[in-house]
């Protein structure tokens, strides 16, 4: 899942990005409103985590602009803030936020809330089952025929995205947009390479089929 973090504090931003990447999420980080807008024009994020007090503007304004303006509207919006009054929560939710988290928070909770927000759209629980394959998103665990399969963060992200859209052909561009963050420039882990590794680890019979010119599909055979 592709996440945009808008947070001006260097130390907190760096810690959150590192923590969420360890949770197999693709995270981009914008320290200012201007940086966030630049990224939002180009990419459709699954979740945007937005700090309210930013050096060059108010997070609430950015939030409202995301609802109407030229920016690509993220699927879900989570507000991170140091203000915890009821009025602040109401203002945030009214401006279009789907969820609200007050600093300081547990990274585990932030990651869980992000996953919960993503699940709101795909109508599936935190465990996706396709044939004998079981993807437990919350525990970040994959099993096939009860046997655990060890996947790297990127591999898990790709499999999770395919599982969340099981039965649907997902293009390589979509996988790139949702499972790779802007800083990922390791060419060795291109979509093709990662998919062949995932296929190899899942074993036979293969559950992921390639539809030439369309994309990849995870489906029960």
């Amino acid at each position, binding site marked *: 899942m592709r996440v945009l973090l808008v947070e001006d504090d260097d130390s*907190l931003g*760096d*810690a959150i990005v590192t923590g969420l990447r360890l949770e197999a999420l693709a995270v981009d980080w914008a320290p200012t409103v201007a940086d966030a807008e630049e990224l939002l024009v180009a990419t459709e994020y699954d979740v945007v985590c937005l700090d309210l007090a930013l050096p060059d503007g108010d997070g609430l304004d950015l939030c409202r602009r995301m609802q109407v303006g030229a920016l690509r509207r993220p699927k879900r919006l989570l507000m991170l803030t140091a203000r915890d009054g009821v009025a602040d929560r109401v203002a945030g939710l009214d401006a279009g936020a789907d969820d609200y988290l007050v*600093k300081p928070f*547990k990274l*585990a909770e932030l990651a869980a809330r992000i996953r919960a927000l993503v699940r709101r759209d795909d109508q599936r629980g935190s465990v996706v089952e396709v044939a004998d394959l079981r993807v437990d998103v919350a525990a970040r665990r994959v099993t096939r025929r009860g046997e655990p399969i060890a996947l790297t963060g990127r591999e898990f992200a790709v499999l999770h995205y395919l599982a969340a859209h099981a039965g649907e052909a997902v293009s390589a561009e979509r996988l790139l947009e949702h499972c790779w963050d802007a800083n990922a420039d390791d060419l060795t882990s291109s979509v093709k390479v990662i998919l062949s590794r995932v296929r190899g680890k899942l074993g036979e019979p293969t559950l992921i089929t390639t539809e030439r010119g369309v994309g990849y599909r995870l489906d029960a055979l």
Partner: protein
Amino acid sequence: MRRSLRTQLVALGLAASVVPLLVLLLVVFGVEEEDESVRTGDGGVDVVADSGVSPWIPGAALVLSLASVGLVWLWAKRAVDPIEQMTSLTDDIQAGSLDRRLELDGAPTEIRELGASFDRMLDRLAASSSLERQLIEEASHDLRTPLAALAARLEVAGKRSDPDEIAADLDRCQADVDRLRSTLDLLLVSSRTRQSELEQVDNDLVAVVARVVERQLLLTPDVSIVVEAPLSLTIGVDGASVERAVANLVTNAVEHGGGAPVDIEVRTLNNAVELVVTDEGPGIDAERLPHIFDRYAGDHHGLGLALVKQVADVYGEVNAESPVDGRNGTRVTLRLRSTERFDERFGQERGRPASPNSRVE
């Protein structure tokens, strides 16, 4: 036994009005009896039918007594009622919010003044409580972000297995803790300045500088600090706040000085005391220079210098220049004016450095 003011006033009032009346009656009856005996002795020349007292007298006495009881009761009520009203109002205020006031406009002057004085006290209490609430809210807001960073970093470190990565995370945790500490210092000084709780006590600025330098040298023994100061220089300031400000200036100079010696000069100039801290580091960009004392300058050092500014705003001023005399470096001048006269003492040879003006390596 404690009696109520109302009972006491009624008793006193009755005593003041009925007792003279009774005395008057006794006197009147006594005189009449004397008159009678005199007349009897005369052989009852003009024995009068209306011998004895005029019936008007007891009647008038009764009416006067009743009237005075009534008046006394009214008098006590008028004196006690505003007090009872105040009691119930203050009880209400105590139970409710500090925003309510007595506003005893209709009451007698003395009671009104008491009420007004009470209202002024409430004004002060309300102002102080709202300032306190505001400070706590700001403090919690300002502490949340560094605390969140520390918590997140610890969580990340807990998930790592590479010892190098864990060590790097711990370094960053340390930086977050330092930032929390500077935030706390700043909040403390800022709350004290805003609540006007800074004390003006005689403090030896040179001793303050010596303590700061000693601590700094423990932390960074490789950087030399050159102090030029009189033997002592007493100034009426809040010692703890000024010491924090001086410590922040020195730490800042050492951290940004690139390992070169840091120069500290304490001097008096036009009825003020100047503390000048100069480093030979790369200096500060011209566009950043006006903002280095801003609270939200962005980096962690902004907090330390913001504290200096808070203290300077109370006692004088602070300014920074960079480059210094055409060379690389930064010079920060903290000028303190005491409300009291400061007292300067030099070493035996005036102008020549004496201890603690020693060169510390």
